[in-house]
């Protein structure tokens, strides 16, 4: 939604009509605008206006407005004060020691500002008179949008690939194997086994030898030794077996304690 510039205010200033002008302050875009309008009534060429006359006109305008008790923006009053000062500077000859701006300089400044404002207004009008996009100049009426096509780069590693293949091949094999079970000897199991193994043997036998038949797989070996050793300590504590180890890390010997019967199953 682009605002559309509207040129109606750029029409030439209306013919002088003091009656209307003196009651209508709302029509002006500030004191400079009012001064510009007053100046235009004076002369076409702003360079040749009488700044003194202009100041007087402005001051009398403000006076009229105030008499009519019309509310007026402070901007206008500030300008009036400045113009009153300008007027005094223009009318009183300048003293040599006076380092304040001369009346002529102030008048030139006012003229410059009026000229500049008028120039900007002319430029605004010239801008408006240019061929405007959407009014006289047109962009493509049916732009062809860019469509975004999403595509995927697939990621897969050789490992994924080989694993997928191996899994597939294995899954094709008839399911006739026994499920892999992990054998963990509980202490109770180990104790029962140990009791059965030692039996009535009264000779020293290395613990390893008893376990030999269980040592076929490495996984079982660890659990068998750990649980059996713990159980043998327990059995020794109960006085059922005797243990002997002749050197550090040497084989552990075990035998049934003499006179003891293997405990019967409860």
């Amino acid at each position, binding site marked *: 939604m682009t605002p559309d510039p509207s040129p109606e205010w750029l029409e030439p200033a209306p013919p002088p009509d003091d009656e209307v002008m003196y009651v209508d302050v709302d029509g002006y875009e500030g004191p400079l605008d009012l001064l510009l309008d007053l100046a235009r009534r004076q002369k076409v060429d702003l360079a040749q206006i009488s700044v003194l006359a202009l100041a007087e006109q402005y001051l009398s305008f403000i006076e009229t407005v105030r008499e009519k008790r019309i509310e007026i923006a402070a901007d206008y009053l500030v300008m009036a004060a400045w113009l009153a000062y300008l007027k005094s500077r223009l009318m009183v000859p300048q003293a040599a020691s006076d380092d304040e701006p001369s009346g002529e300089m102030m008048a030139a400044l006012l003229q410059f500002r009026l000229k500049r404002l008028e120039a900007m207004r002319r430029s605004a009008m010239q801008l408006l008179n240019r061929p405007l996009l959407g009014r006289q100049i047109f962009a*493509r009426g049916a732009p062809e949008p860019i*469509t975004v096509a999403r*595509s995927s780069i*697939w990621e897969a590693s050789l490992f994924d690939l080989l694993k*997928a293949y191996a899994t597939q091949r294995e899954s094709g094999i008839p399911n006739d194997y026994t499920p892999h079970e992990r054998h963990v000897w509980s202490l109770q199991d180990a104790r029962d086994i140990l009791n059965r193994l030692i039996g009535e043997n009264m000779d020293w036998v290395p613990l390893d030898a008893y376990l030999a038949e269980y040592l076929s797989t490495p996984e079982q070996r660890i659990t068998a030794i750990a649980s059996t050793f713990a159980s043998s300590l327990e059995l020794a504590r109960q006085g059922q077996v005797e243990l002997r180890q002749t050197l550090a890390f040497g084989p552990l010997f075990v035998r049934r304690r003499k006179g003891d019967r293997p405990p019967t199953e409860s």
Partner: protein
Amino acid sequence: MSDESEVSESPDLADRYLRIIEALLFASAEPLAASDFVPHLGEGADIEALLTRLAEQYAPRGVNLVRRADKWAFRTAEDLNFLLRREQTDNRPLSRAALETLAIIAYHQPATRAEVEEVRGVATGKGTLDLLMEAGWVRMRGRRRTPGRPVTYGTTEGFLDHFSLESLADLPGLEELKGSGLLSNRLPPNMQIPLPFDGPLREDEDPLDPDDIEGQDEPNE
């Protein structure tokens, strides 16, 4: 350029008409019929001839004047339509089904879809094969000389590239798969892993039918 005689107006007038038609077509949000130009050109102009001429002038350009039913509009030249598509790629992991299919094709190639399904034990959707072909890893090789003449699939150079294989011979064999723990030791002794083959058509393969080839467009064409 078109034959001057087609347009009866004087060259200057014809050019002016062409410019106006061109501007109106350009600025319009909708295609325009010949009658839409009458208010701007006057009754005398042979608008159909002017439009035909304008279309000829634009024919070699990046934008063409095209006729749609009774109306005319500027459109991007068809061969440049790719300019209006923006590719957006995202990286995505290959689905399990696709990975399995690819692996089986890789080892068993040339393999038909039925053969892939036999190994996988489930039906393989056409979409999975399409995806692998779109990814540029699988191609149709030929047709097996068996009833039904099924298409045989094989891997591509893009496949070797992606998986950093110099050749199919680099795919690990049975022993290597076992050694790396990917295959367990409890495989039946008769299990074999085929030697993949991606050479020229084998004796039991026919070339693809002409119709097949069309479906094999690379995605980035």
